[in-house]
C-alpha cells in the first residue's frame, strides 16, 4: 500500500508524541528504515515539511522561513531571531536571488518580502 506524505507525517508525529528525548532518536531511525523499506525516500522532503507544520500547529506557533540575500554577522541574525517566540520553528537560509534584503515566509502561505528582487520585479511587471 502506498502512503501519502501526510499519512507519514501524522504517524511520525503521533509516534514521537509524549516520548522521552532519549527514545526519540530511535523512533526517527526506525521511521527512516520504514521509509526505505517502502521505497518512499523521495517523499522525505514533503514529509518533513508537513511534519514541521504539524509540530508548530500543535504548539500554537508558526513555521518561519527567514531568507537573507547574503551572509550576515551572527549578531544581526540573532537579533532577528529574537523577534520570534519559542513556539515558532524558525529556519534561516541564504538566497542570493533576493539580491539584497530579507524575505520572511510564514507557514508557507504568507510572506513579508522586503528584498530588492521583489521591488525590481514589481517595477518591471507593472501594468
Amino acid at each position, binding site marked *: 500500500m502506498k502512503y501519502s506524505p501526510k499519512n507519514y507525517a501524522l504517524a511520525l508525529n503521533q509516534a514521537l508524541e509524549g516520548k522521552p528525548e532519549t527514545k526519540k532518536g530511535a523512533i526517527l531511525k526506525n521511521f527512516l528504515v520504514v521509509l526505505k523499506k517502502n521505497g518512499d525516500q523521495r517523499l522525505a522532503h514533503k514529509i518533513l515539511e508537513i511534519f514541521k507544520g504539524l509540530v508548530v500547529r500543535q504548539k500554537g506557533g508558526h513555521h518561519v522561513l527567514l531568507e537573507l540575500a547574503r551572509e550576515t554577522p551572527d549578531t544581526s541574525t540573532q537579533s532577528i531571531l529574537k523577534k520570534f517566540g519559542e513556539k515558532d520553528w524558525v529556519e534561516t537560509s541564504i538566497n542570493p536571488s533576493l539580491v539584497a534584503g530579507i524575505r520572511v515566509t*510564514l507557514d*508557507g*502561505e504568507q*510572506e513579508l518580502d522586503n528584498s530588492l528582487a521583489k521591488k525590481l520585479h514589481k*517595477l518591471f*511587471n507593472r501594468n
Partner: protein
Amino acid sequence: MAYDIIEKLKKEIEGFKDEAGFENVGIVTETSDGIARVSGLAGALSQEILNIETETGDIPTLASNLEESSIGTIILGDFEKVKIGHRVRQTGKVLSIKVSPEIIGRVVDPLGRPLDNKGVIFKNPEKAEEYRLEKIAPSVINRESVKIPVHTGVKAVDAMIPIGRGQRELIIGDRGTGKTAIALDAILNQKQDPGRPQMICVYVAVGQKNSKIAKIIKTMEDAGALKYTVVVSAPASAPAALQYLAPFAGCAVGEYFMEKGQDVLVVYDDLTKHAQSYRELSLLLRRPPGREAYPGDIFYLHSRLLERSAKLSKEQGGGSLTALPIIETQLGDVSAYIPTNVISITDGQIYLESSLFYQGLRPAVNVGLSVSRVGSSAQTKAMKKVAGRLRLELAQFRELQAFVQFASDLDPNTKKKIDRGEVLTEILKQSDREPISFEKQVVILYAGINGFLDDIPKTRVKEFEQKFTDYLEKMHREKVLAAIEKTNELNEETEKNLKVALEEFKKIF
C-alpha cells in the same frame, strides 16, 4: 524622442512606491507538461488566474483543482520556464477575454492575443469589455424559440436540415468528408443573405493543422468573409491548455455580440480534439479517468459550452448565438463516447458519410441519419414549400433504388420516380466554397421537384442550374429572385413568373 522616453521612465521610477506587508503566497511544488501544483494560497478561487513569478516575468496559470493541501493549475504560458520553488500569487481575476467590435476581422488566441501580425486589436481599449470564458448559460426565462433561419448556402442542408438562429447543429463525420467545408460555406454565405440581419461569425480552430487554419483564413479573406468573422485559433502546436480554452473563448466573443442584440454563428472545429486536450489536462491533473480515459465531467464540459447557444428574448435584446460544433468519427462510428455525448446535447446533426463522399455525392450528407430538431420552425415559407416535397421524393427514390438492384423490368411510374430522384440528387450536389443564396436554392429546387429537369440529361443538370440562375438574375431578377428574397415566400404570382421563366429558358437551353 530618446529624451522623452528616459524622462518618462525616470518619472515612473521616482514615483514607484512599494510598501512591504504580509501577502498570501503559494509555492510551485511540482511542474510537468503544462501543469503546476502549488502549495499555499488556501483562499484561491476555482478558475482564478494566478501569477507564477519566474525570472523572465509573470506567467499566468489557471487554478483548476482545489485540493486539501495544494492547487492543481493549468499553465497558460511558456511552461518550460516554471520551476519548483517559484512564488505564485493570486490576481483575484477569473479567466476572461477582452472583446469589442474591433476584434472582428482578427485572428486571436484563446487569451485574446493577436496572431495575425496586424498590430494591437483595440485602438480604444477603454471601450473593450472583459467577457468571462466560463459563464452560466442564459436562463429559460431569457430565451425564446428559434424563428429566423441561418442559411448555410448548402442546398441539402437549407432544404432538408434547416438551422435556426440560436440552434446547435452538430456536423459529424469521418475525416476528410467535408465537415469544415459545410461550416465554412455557412460563414461565407452570411454575406449574401440580405433578408435577415447580418450575422457575426466566430470560427474556433481547436487542434487543427496550422496550414489548414491558414488556408481557411485565406479563403475567408478572399471571399470578404473576414469582415464579419473572428478567428480563435489554438492549433495542434498550441499547448493543451489553450486548446481546452479555445471553444470557451470563442463562445465568450460570440456572447458579447449576442448580448448587444446581434446574431452570431460560432463554429467549433472540432470538439473531438477539444475533448482530447481536456482528457490530457485531466490526466495530468490526476483526476480519475473514466470511459476511454476521459474524466467524469467530459459531458458537462460540452453541455455547458453548447448550452450557451441561445435565442434571447426581446427583453434581452433579441440576439442569438448559433453553434455549429464539429465532431470527427472513426470509421463512421457514431456510437463512440464523445459523438453520442454531443449528439444528445445538440438540436440535431448533419451526418456526413465517407461512402457517399467517394461516390461523388458532395456534400456527402446522409439525409436519412441527419436531422434538425428545431430548425423547421425557422425555415422560410418559400423553402418549406419546395423542401417538403423534396424530402418525400428523395425518400421514395432511395426506397426504389434499393429495389432496382433486384428487378430488371420497371413500370413507367417507378422509372419516372427513379429518374426524378437522380435529377434531385444531382441538384443537391454542390462544390465547396460555392454557397448558393437562399432564393436561388428555392428556384432550382422548385424546377427539380416540378419536373422541369426531367428531360435534361444528368450530366447537364449542373450546367442547367448555373445558366438558369444567371438567366433569372439578368432577366427576371425583380419578378422572381427579388420577390422571394423580399417576402421569403413563393406566392402564386412569383410561382407563375417562375414557371414562365423556366419555360422560356428551356427553349434556349
